[in-house]
């Protein structure tokens, strides 16, 4: 047999087997079965290869149905891969966000003449880490909700993610009100990031929109805490870094979806 049998190829196309070893095994097993069928037909005196192929296909059954049956059998594998991939995506995204923002903050405070270790106190770092982590997990949660629930109703994802986060925020508020407020604010910002993503503008417009949003939000938050004309200029690098990190992590999420989840029908 030269090349993959078309019947086997059709089965595999519907089976969406997540692991290459399963794909190879199913392909070899089915190809062997079809060869046995063809050998039997030849042994019965059939010589016309087209006729043999027709009989083989008829006895094998609908390859799409067989493929879908395999897909159901191996569904748990796909869910495990999806869970692991999404956990990895979330972790990588949060780390990317922290790294980018804290490096830019350290650079900005150093260039303004501050000593980064003094200007970025542990309390400041804790709060920013919480804020940025909640922001990242918030819009990734919305991405996942829209990806797995209602593909064409992305704004429903905001409601679902918010509802899912409410018990956590409520519980945190009873214990530590300030971090709970930060998480709630981050979730609000995540909704804006997600809304901008849903509008599907060009990459540069999206990035510009994110920078503008975070600059306004960051500027307003800082002017309330410390009056001063240069506050807006001071927060700009950090806000640009947050916007860039949002942009990159969302691109990473789409890449994961296209390359890892979608081909496996997850």
């Amino acid at each position: 047999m030269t090349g993959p049998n078309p019947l086997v190829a059709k089965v595999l196309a519907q089976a969406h087997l997540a692991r290459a070893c399963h794909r190879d095994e199913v392909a070899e097993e089915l190809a062997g079965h079809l060869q046995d069928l063809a050998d039997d037909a030849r042994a019965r005196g059939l010589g016309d290869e087209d006729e043999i192929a027709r009989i083989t296909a008829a006895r094998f059954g609908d390859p799409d149905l067989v493929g879908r049956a395999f897909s159901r059998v191996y569904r748990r594998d796909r869910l495990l891969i999806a869970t692991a991939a999404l956990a990895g995506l979330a972790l990588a995204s949060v780390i990317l966000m922290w790294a980018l923002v804290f490096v830019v903050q350290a650079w900005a405070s150093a260039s303004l003449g501050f000593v980064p270790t003094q200007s970025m106190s542990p309390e400041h770092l804790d709060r920013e880490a919480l804020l940025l982590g909640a922001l990242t997990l918030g819009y990734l949660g919305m991405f996942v909700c829209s990806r797995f629930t209602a593909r064409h109703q992305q704004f429903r994802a905001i409601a679902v993610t918010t509802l899912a986060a409410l018990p956590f925020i409520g519980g945190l508020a009873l214990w530590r009100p300030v971090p709970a407020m930060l998480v709630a604010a981050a979730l609000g910002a995540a909704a804006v990031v997600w809304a901008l993503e849903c509008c599907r503008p060009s990459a540069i417009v999206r990035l510009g929109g994110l920078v503008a949003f975070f600059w306004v939000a960051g500027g307003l938050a800082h002017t309330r805490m410390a009056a001063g004309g240069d506050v807006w200029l001071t927060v700009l690098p950090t806000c640009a870094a947050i916007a860039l990190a949002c942009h990159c992590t969302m691109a990473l999420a789409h890449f994961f979806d296209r390359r890892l989840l979608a081909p496996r029908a997850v």
Partner: protein
Amino acid sequence: MEDEPFDRELLKGSIGLLILRLLSSRDMYGYEIILEASRRSDDVFRFKEGTLYPALHHLERQGYLRSYWQTGQNNRRRKYYGLTASGRRLAERRHREWLHFTRAINAVLAEES
């Protein structure tokens, strides 16, 4: 099969039992299972053969079957299936259930006739 002597759904629901029962005697590969089912049933059980494999993989993933590759005639590698201990227990249980069920059905049908 166009000239099937019974509703295909009846066979679909029993394919697990048939596989477990056939493999109770010895380890077999997929095509061999089909030939054996056909032989034992006097050619009544001729199902669409592709449907056998998802059922085999399902039982294997549930831990009722084990499988291994073996090279046989014509240097062709074949995937053999055999029952695990829990598969053997399931085969016996399903067989008892089936006998119980068919006895009840037969009893009802006999009374009707």
